[in-house]
């Protein structure tokens, strides 16, 4: 009997919820709340500061990135806090699909050409098929073309690769965090170098202070270093977005703007004031 009353009560209650569709909107909204939506814009751009974010540009979008790193600020007024010297990187990047992203770049530092391929493996989503984080794979290749008069190097000796698994979560609309397990491999190392392979773990994030302005941070810890002189790279910066541009201004101890460089070849000590001021400017174009 109790069972029957219970069932009746449940049925009655459920019919009441049908009555509640009297309130047409409530019925519609109940139906909609389960829809899966992708979480967009975990980060403003494809770069956190020096390194990549999980973000890629969508299909048919080209991104043109100009990045500068000036000399170290401890040069003082004589060097105008590093502004007398600059290294730069130019990059062209393109979204093949909404998940596949490729790019080419040229850094003035060591006259290096680089290329990368980036693929969004998992995309964070909300709703019935929710996924709490995004994962993106990034593989890069860098070819140093700076001539060394003392060394006869084969092409393969000038090549270094890096592979990263980027994991990120947009915790709130303002706060996103990212982890970056990294492997850098060099075919050829110098006499004072110890390891062909460098393993590192990066961590970073951004906090948006307004819709178009945010703070960001990035740190890579090396488990196995190229040689004893390298330091872990640290960067703090701000993101400013205006329409199709993203401006990023930063302070970092890294000179290079490509993964194999800033992760494993940084020798400046952030806490000794060997800090570079720099910026990234990204401009996107819808090509197709």
């Amino acid at each position, binding site marked *: *009997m109790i069972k*029957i*009353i219970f*069932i*009746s009560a449940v*049925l*009655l209650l*459920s*019919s*009441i919820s*049908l*009555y509640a*569709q*009297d309130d*047409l*909107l409530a*019925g*519609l*909204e109940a*139906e*909609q709340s389960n*829809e899966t*939506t*992708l979480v*967009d*814009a975990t980060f403003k751009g494809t770069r956190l500061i020096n390194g990549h974010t999980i973000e890629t*540009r*969508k*299909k*048919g*979008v080209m991104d043109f990135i100009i990045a500068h790193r000036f000399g170290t600020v401890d040069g003082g007024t004589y060097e105008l806090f590093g502004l007398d010297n600059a290294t730069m990187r130019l990059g062209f990047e393109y979204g093949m699909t*909404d998940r596949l992203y490729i790019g080419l770049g040229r850094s003035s530092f060591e006259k290096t050409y680089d290329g990368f391929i980036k693929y969004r493996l998992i995309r964070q989503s909300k709703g019935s098929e929710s996924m709490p984080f995004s994962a993106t794979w990034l593989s890069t290749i860098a070819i140093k073309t700076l001539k060394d008069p003392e060394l006869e190097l084969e092409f393969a000796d000038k090549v270094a690769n890096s592979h990263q698994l980027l994991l990120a979560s947009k915790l*709130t*609309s303002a706060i996103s965090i990212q982890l970056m397990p990294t492997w850098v491999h060099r075919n050829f190392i110098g006499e004072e170098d110890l390891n062909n392979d460098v393993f590192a773990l990066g961590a970073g994030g951004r906090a948006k202070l307004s*819709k*178009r302005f945010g703070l960001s941070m990035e740190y890579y810890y090396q488990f196995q270093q190229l040689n004893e002189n390298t330091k872990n790279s640290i960067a703090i910066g701000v993101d400013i*977005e*205006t*329409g*199709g541009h993203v401006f990023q201004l930063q302070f970092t101890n890294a000179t290079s703007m490509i993964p194999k460089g800033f992760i494993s070849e940084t020798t400046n000590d952030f806490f000794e004031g060997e800090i570079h001021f720099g910026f990234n400017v990204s401009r*996107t174009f*819808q090509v197709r």
Partner: protein
Amino acid sequence: MKIRLLILTIAICTMGQSMAQNTMLDRNGTASFFSEAPMEDIEAINEKVLGAIDLKKGTLAVSMLMKGFHFERSLMEEHFNENYLESDKFPKATFTGTIRDFSKLNFLKNGSFEAEVEGELEIHGVKKPLKTKVKFDVSDSKLKAATVFKIEIEKFDIEVPTLVIKNIAEIVEVKALFNFSI
């Protein structure tokens, strides 16, 4: 006794359901908007708009996800959700309204007619009254509804920075189309 109670309950429940049958639904309604500004025209369309019409009371309800709007340029879509509509905070736009002079209209006979709908539109967490003409088209058991209206985005607390003021219109034209069925 047990059985009777159960039957009674089921009867009450089905009554509830038969009442709900006055409601016609469309799960794939479309809503689109068009912004015409000196620098660029922006157009977006949402093809997963939920709409319901109660033919007993003459009431209407519409609900849509802001992320359901798709743009020609993907970056516009990102900015729409991130910077203007804040879709994480305000995921939906909704409308509830009543059809004026509903008792004088015949929704059962084939044919088309115009009616005025008055109600409340909620976008970006801001509710504003809306009055618009809706063209209804009845054919057999289907009911089409179409409307066009203009909204001032400023009234919905959607901020446009001065830098892009020439890219985004202050008044945006909205179109909605539903094909209701039982």
